[in-house]
């Protein structure tokens, strides 16, 4: 019942945004009990190291266990899953168990509160003792106002989620995460449920926000195009069990144009990804390529 160990973090709230941060996965394995006895290995010994601010894409077919991996990094464990079965996840060299406040998650199903205004939804974390003690009211109010501007919802701050579109709701969720100025931002297919045009808008917004205040982003997607458009680094995961099938960096500046998408570099990367996945786990799960 007592899993409330939030590792003590220095109380400085205005840490430099370039603050060194590292997120390390060491031989992470996750087994689920399989129906009818035995175990299913969902994640099979993943080694990953993220060392500096950057947008890191975790690309894998649907059902590949990439969300499970992300949840483990966030220390979130729904459905009573023990994470991980073996191996360690550490932040700045410190192994983490259970929830921790170094990383904030953005879910595909934005958990916006229907009874609260846009403003109160973004200010939601400051209802909790942890953040109230860490950030004085005057500062968090200023941060919320700033985030409202940054995500373009300043004129909608009194509205409620039901009065917003899906994209606007996801902006609220993004603002609520970034208002905490996290060093690590974990995004679980955040734009997966949006239409193509809105998704592109959101990708541009993310790039803008990232520039304003870089942090270590781990972004899960099954959309090859999205991975190539956003990533400084793309980690390709195989499926069942998830393993690192490929891992490369992209140096092209963001935002990346349609022309870049059609450039030999992008086309080659896209084919490389599909080819790798096809070889490692043929016929399992599905990827999306939007061109």
């Amino acid at each position, binding site marked *: *019942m007592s899993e*409330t160990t*939030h590792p003590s973090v220095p109380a400085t709230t205005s840490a430099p945004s370039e603050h060194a941060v590292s997120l390390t996965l060491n031989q992470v394995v996750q087994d689920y009990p399989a129906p009818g006895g035995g175990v299913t290995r969902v994640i099979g010994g993943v080694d990953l190291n993220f060392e500096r601010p950057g947008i890191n894409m975790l690309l894998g077919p649907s059902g590949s266990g990439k969300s499970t991996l992300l949840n483990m990094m*966030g*220390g*979130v464990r*729904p459905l009573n899953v023990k994470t991980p079965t073996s191996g360690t996840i550490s932040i700045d060299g410190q192994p983490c168990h259970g*929830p921790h*406040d170094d990383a*904030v*998650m953005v*879910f595909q*199903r934005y*958990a916006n*509160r*229907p*009874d609260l205004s846009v403003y109160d939804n973004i200010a*939601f*974390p400051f*209802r*909790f*003792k*942890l*953040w109230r003690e860490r950030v004085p009211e005057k500062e968090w109010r200023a941060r919320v106002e700033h985030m409202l501007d940054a995500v373009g919802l300043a004129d909608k701050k009194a509205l*409620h989620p*039901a009065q917003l579109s899906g994209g606007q709701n996801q902006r609220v969720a993004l603002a*609520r995460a970034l208002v*905490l100025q996290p060093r690590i931002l974990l995004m679980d297919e955040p734009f997966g449920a949006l239409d193509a045009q809105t998704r592109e808008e959101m990708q541009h917004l993310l790039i803008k926000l990232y520039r304003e205040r870089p942090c270590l982003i781990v972004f899960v997607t099954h959309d090859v195009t999205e991975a190539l458009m956003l990533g400084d680094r793309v980690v390709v995961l195989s499926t069942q069990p998830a393993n690192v099938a490929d891992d490369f960096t992209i140096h092209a500046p963001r935002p990346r144009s349609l022309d870049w998408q059609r450039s030999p570099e992008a086309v080659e990367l896209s084919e490389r990804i599909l080819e790798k996945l096809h070889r490692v786990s043929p016929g399992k799960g599905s990827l999306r390529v939007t061109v």
Partner: protein
Amino acid sequence: MSEFWNPYVQPSPRMRRQLALLSVGAVLLLWSALSGFGVVGPNRLPAPWDVLSAFGYLFWHNGESMLAEATLWSVGRMLAAGVLVVLIGIPIGVAMGASPRINAALSPLVDPFRSAPVVALLPILVMWLGIDEAMKIAFLFIGAVVYLIPMVRDAIQAVPQSHWIGARDLGATPWECIRQAVLPMAMPRIADALIVAVSVMWTYITVAEYVNARVGLGQLIQNARRFSAWDQVFAGIIVIIVLALVTYQLMRYFKARLFPWETHQ
């Protein structure tokens, strides 16, 4: 007529009113005919106009209103029981919903009473609490709370887990998750539970006032029955039905005002 057998097309409000009036009118007409033509005698079925005059008599006679006094007493008992239901039932229900362990411990004590004959508890309550107000309020309380607690528990458990996980990820303690993320989402359904509890209390008010009530709507009906004043019995029953309906509609109204976000979620 193509929309007659179509559950998804609502008639206009005007048509709904007309249809409601039609059915109530038909029953009144049948009732009037049965007693007017003497098909059923006044000792079995008092005529509508007799019930109406009995209502007038109860409402104002000899410079006092028996009906108002009885209503005040009954409503007062219900209020007392209602406050207890809210103060005791809601926290228990929330605790059971929020912690499966508390639920496992308490549900064998609570759930069976939903289908148990609560009325049979009356003699026991009389034995323990005597025949005065404490017994009546306790009876109303038990009758309502055994419905309320499981409904409140279910309301908490029906909140999507995403709210809990989201708050947990933002660094909330488990209690903060319940208090700040889950409970507010469950409030509309908790309000529904309270509305049901009040309706249940209205149905039990006559039973609660069965024993040694000097004044109250249930007592009023009891008393009239003893003297075979069937017109007064009918008037009393109709008053209770109308009061129950009015409280129900009022609570529904306030619920909609308090949780406007629930309807367009």
